[in-house]
C-alpha cells in the first residue's frame, strides 16, 4: 500500500516545528509501524536528508521507549499496543497519517518525535520505591500476600513508563503514571510503612514537573498500552487525603527526599 505521512519535524528543543510530508510507498501490511518509518528513513538518508528521529528500542512493547501520536492517538489506532507493536494492516492504501510527538509541558521535545521524559524518573525518585537495603530482606515467604493483592499490585506495576497517559490527557497530567506506582506499592505489605509519605512526595514532584491536574476524563486509561486502570488514581486520591489528614509518619525535613 502507499501512504502519505505528515511528520512533525523539529530540529531542537528551542526550534519551531512543522509538519513535513513524506510518501511511504510499497508498504507491506506485515510491517510494524516503526519498520515503515525505518524504510522511510532509509530513503531519506540515501537522498541525503536528515532522517526522522524517533525513540524505540525493544520493539516488543515492554521497554516504553517508543511513543508517538498517530492520527491524534498515542501509539495509534489499535488499543492496548505500543507503536512498535502496531502493524500496517491497521491502515489502508491511500491513508493520510499524521505523526506527532507527545505534547505536554512536562515532556519538552528534544528533536522531531523524541521528547524528554526524565520528569517520570524524578517522580519515582521522590518516593516510588520501598526503602530496603540490599541484604536486609527477610525470607521471601515470611509474609504471605493474598493472591488478590499480588494480582492488583501486578496490574498497576505493568506500567511501562511510556508517557502515553500524559500525551492523551487534555490537561497534560501524569496522574495515571504516578498513581500506578502508588497503587502498585500500596497494594503490598512491603509498601505500607512509606505508603502515605510516598504519595505526598510523589504528588508534590508531579506538580513541580509542570504536569496538569487530573479531571477524570479517562483518556489516559484508553491510551495506555498496558491498560492501567484509573482506579489507581482513585486510590492515589484516597491515600493523599488520608495523608493530609495525618496518616503516615513525618520525616524531619525530608520533603521530596528518601528515607
Amino acid at each position, binding site marked *: 500500500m502507499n501512504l502519505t505521512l505528515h511528520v512533525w519535524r523539529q530540529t531542537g528543543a528551542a526550534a519551531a516545528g512543522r509538519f513535513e510530508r513524506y510518501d511511504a510507498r510499497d508498504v507491506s501490511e506485515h510491517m510494524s509501524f516503526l519498520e515503515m518509518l525505518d524504510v522511510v528513513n532509509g530513503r531519506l538518508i540515501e537522498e541525503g536528508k536528515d532522517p526522522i528521529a524517533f525513540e524505540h528500542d525493544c520493539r516488543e512493547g515492554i521497554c516504553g521507549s517508543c511513543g508517538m501520536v498517530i492520527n491524534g492517538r498515542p501509539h495509534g489506532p489499535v488499543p492496548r499496543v505500543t507503536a512498535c507493536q502496531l502493524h500496517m494492516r491497521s491502515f489502508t492504501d491511500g491513508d493520510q497519517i499524521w505523526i506527532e510527538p507527545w*505534547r505536554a*509541558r512536562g515532556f519538552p521535545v528534544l528533536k522531531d518525535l523524541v521528547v524528554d521524559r526524565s520528569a517520570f524518573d524524578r517522580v519515582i525518585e521522590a518516593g516510588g520505591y520501598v526503602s530496603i537495603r540490599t541484604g536486609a530482606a527477610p525470607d521471601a515467604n515470611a509474609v504471605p500476600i493474598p493472591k488478590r493483592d499480588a494480582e492488583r499490585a501486578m496490574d498497576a506495576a505493568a506500567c511501562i513508563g511510556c508517557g502515553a497517559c500524559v500525551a492523551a490527557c487534555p490537561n497534560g*497530567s501524569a496522574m495515571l503514571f504516578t498513581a500506578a506506582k502508588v497503587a502498585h506499592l500500596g497494594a503490598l505489605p512491603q509498601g505500607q510503612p512509606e505508603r502515605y509519605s510516598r504519595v505526598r512526595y510523589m504528588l508534590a514532584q508531579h506538580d513541580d514537573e509542570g504536569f496538569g491536574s487530573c479531571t477524570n*476524563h479517562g483518556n489516559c486509561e484508553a491510551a495506555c498500552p498496558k491498560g492501567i486502570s484509573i482506579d489507581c488514581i482513585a486510590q492515589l486520591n484516597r491515600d493523599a487525603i488520608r495523608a493530609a489528614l495525618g496518616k503516615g509518619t513525618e520525616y524531619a525535613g525530608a520533603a521530596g527526599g528518601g528515607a
Partner: protein
Amino acid sequence: MRRVAAFYQSTVGKKVAMAITGFILVGFVIGHMLGNLKAFQGAEKFNHYAEGLRELGAPFFGHGQVLWLVRIALIVSVGAHVLAAAQLTLRSWRARPAKYHAAPHLELSYASRTMRWGGVIIAGYVAYHLMHFTLGNAHPDFLPGDAYHNLVVGFQSPWVVAVYLVAVAMLTFHLYHGIWSALQTLGASHPAVNRWRRGAAAALALVVLTGFAAVPVGVFAGIIR
C-alpha cells in the same frame, strides 16, 4: 493543619476541594429542585414554602438568619469551587500548550469535555436567575413576596424558558461527570462501588434534569398558571 494547607496547594488537594464543595452544591440543587416542584401544588403552598425558607431554624434563629447562613455557605462553596477550577484550568492549559493536529476524543465524553465552559455558562445563568427571581431586576413584573406570581409571569416568554432549559441541560451534564468525578477524586473506588458510580451519577443527573425542566415547561404549557 499544615498538612491540609499543603495538600490544598497540590492539584489533588484542589480537586478534593472541588469535590467537597461540589457535593454541597449538589445537595443545594436537589433541595432547590424539590422546592420548585411545589409549584405544581398551587400558589398558596408554593408561596408558603418560599416564605417558610426564611423561617428555617425557628425558634432558635430569627427571620431569615438560617437562610443567610445557607446563602453564605453556598457563596463560599461556589467561590471555592470556581477558584479551584480556575486555578486548575490555568495550570492545565500551561501543561498542554500545544494541540494535536487531529485529536479524536478517546474517552472524553461530551459531559467531561464541557465541564469548564459548562461551569462558566452555569455561573452566568445563576447570575441571571438571581436577577430574575430573587432581586427581580431582570423580571418584567416582579412582586416581592409573591414567588408564585413571579414564577408564572417569568416563564411566559419562550426565550426565557429556552434559556432555562439550556441551563438545566448544561447542569445535567455538569452533574453527570461531576458526581462521578467527585467520587473518583475522593477515592471512592472499589470494585463494589465502581459498578454503580456511573449509573448513580447518571440517575441523579436525570432526576435533576426532569425536576428542573418540569417547572418552566409546566408554566409554558399552561399546567402551572
